[in-house]
């Protein structure tokens, strides 16, 4: 069974393309959200295994949303995405509860699997 993913980004063209790309690469995109608040409620309803979370959101930023999601009973794995590079956020990505970070232009099913797999190996 393919991994269930929720895509959170305020930029509609990105959500559409990310959904097409991840679906083509074998993921099951169960929903989309436009901001932090929508992301939190959608995650609780849809219970995805992975949340692809944009850092720059109109309300709460991605780091904040990740903190909230991590406290839920069935916390999803969070992967941050941004059109900025990982280095633009300094140590904030490493300090965050998120599993990893993907620059938006580099997004693909393989890249997402690599981040999820890598970190899982490190964690185990």
């Amino acid at each position, binding site marked *: 069974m393919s991994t269930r993913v929720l895509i959170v980004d305020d*930029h509609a*063209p*990105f959500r559409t*393309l*990310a959904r*097409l*790309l991840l679906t*083509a*690469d074998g993921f099951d995109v169960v929903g989309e959200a436009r901001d932090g608040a929508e992301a939190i409620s959608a995650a609780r309803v849809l219970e995805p295994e992975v949340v692809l979370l944009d850092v*720059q959101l109109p309300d709460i930023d991605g780091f904040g949303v990740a903190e909230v999601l991590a406290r839920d009973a069935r916390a999803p794995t969070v992967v941050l995405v941004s*059109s*900025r590079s990982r280095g633009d956020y300094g140590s904030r990505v490493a300090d965050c509860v998120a599993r990893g970070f993907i620059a*938006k*232009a*580099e*997004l*693909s099913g393989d890249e997402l699997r690599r981040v999820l797999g890598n970190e899982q190996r490190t964690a185990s």
Partner: protein
Amino acid sequence: VTGLGGGGRLVVGVGGLVSGVAAGAALLLGGYDVAPELVAPTLVLNLAVGWSFIGVGLIAWSRRPDNRTGVLMVLLGFAWLLRIAGAVAQPAWFVFGFVTSSLYLGVLAHLLVTFATGGITTPAQRALVVIGYLLTVPTTVLLLVLVARSGSCWDCPRNLVVVSRSSGSAVVLLRISVVGLVVTILLTATLLAVVLTQWWRAGRAQRRSMGPAVVGAVTILGTLVVQRIGVLLDFPPALSAGLAWSSQVVLVVWPLALLFGVLRSRLDRSAVSSMIVELGAGLAPDRLEVVLARTLHDPSLRLAFWLPEREAFVDSRGAPVALTPTSAGRALTYLDRDGARLAVLLHDAALAEDPELVSAVAAGAGMAVENERLHAEVRAQLRDVRESRARIVDAADAARRRVERDLHDGAQQRLVTVALALKLAGRRLGSAPAEEIAALLQETGDELLGALDELRELARGIYPVLLTDAGLGPAVIALAERSPIPAVVSTAPAERLPGPVEQTGYFVVSEALANAAKHSAAGRVAIDLQAGGGALIVEVSDDGVGGADANGSGLRGLADRVAAAGGSLRLTSPPGGGTQLIAELPMGLPVARP
């Protein structure tokens, strides 16, 4: 009365002298038998009190014609001498002397109520003065009428002026009106309270000048209260006589204390001289205010300098000073030189009654004030430059943040979309229908064109290449063509101007157009640029709602930018009357104007 000239005062002085001689004659030759040991002290003390008040009063009057104290002192002296008419041993003189015997106390009450203020200033003061006078001649006349009706007479006539141990009959007479006596005591006590209250409320400068007069007044009033209570309670005659003597002695010197209060500035010439010496020796910055405060005995004194360019007062550090002349107990004295305003002194209101001292100090400190004013002006400019420098740095930071955000939200997002779309097209190549791939590629092309547009717009916002290549005129015309509100350039210089002038002029037009688009709701903007006479005049006016705030961050930044180029900015924006912005940019060296 106060308008009396020098000649008039001379007549009054001669009158006082003659009255004194007449009073002396009345005392010596009046016809009463006076104990030999009492003749000399009576004569000396009575003349001393009368002449002291008249003479010293005339001095105070001539030096301070606006102050009523001098006039009242002269009147008190005459009232004092008048009562000596009672020393002539004839019934008519006795009655006259008796009736006028307490008139001087009314004038004394008047003087006590008003010496601190120089005249009647409140209804309460007026009431006290009126009651004081009513207790003198009117009350005495009433008493005489009552006594005459009762048919009784005392061993009249007798000498009322000489204080002796056998003045028992006067005591009998006074007892008739215990009520009048009690009222007198109450009035005297009230006067004592008034004097002490005035002292308590006075500022430091005023206390200094009031001091001796207050001490004298308290002594006189205290003696009077005790003396009157003594009459009421029938003190031994020896004690009453002693009190009467002592109050007369105090009355001799009190005029000098009053004069000190009225003329204190005359005595303070020495303070002014030492100030001038101190100023001549050179002064550390900021010290002038301290020196002036010490010379004028007013620690609360503040000195503020006039900056004609900005039409405002600043302190020695160049910080703006708000002047509140209406605040109680404070007064302003402006210091001018050759008709030009230099500075203002904010001081204790008591000093305002002493304009000669203040102007002497101001004249003595003139050069130092002028120097200090220049210092303050430089500091104020430095302060302005520091503030505008900080604002310019802030504005530059804000502009860079805006560029980063515009890049991130615009072109960067579009390029991300292009990358993902191409990646997706690659995945689907072979499996998806050709139309789907074509649609993806079409989207890629559209996004790339959008990104290019945004990057171009952004680059032009950072620096307009047309300004560098073709100059201010073409750059402003291109700017007007892109304006969301129709904008017309009526005149623009065809020739090239100095770089900083072109850049600042362009910035003014660009900001004015951006503001008009954001706030004015205007239908049309007119742009006019006139170069000539060593300056570029940039004028941008719209027909919008007006009411623009010159201190808003946008216009503030524009003013800073114009000031940095040595120019000036003028905003006219009445509510409902459109907005007109005029910048004048000098085309010489771009330095700040002095």
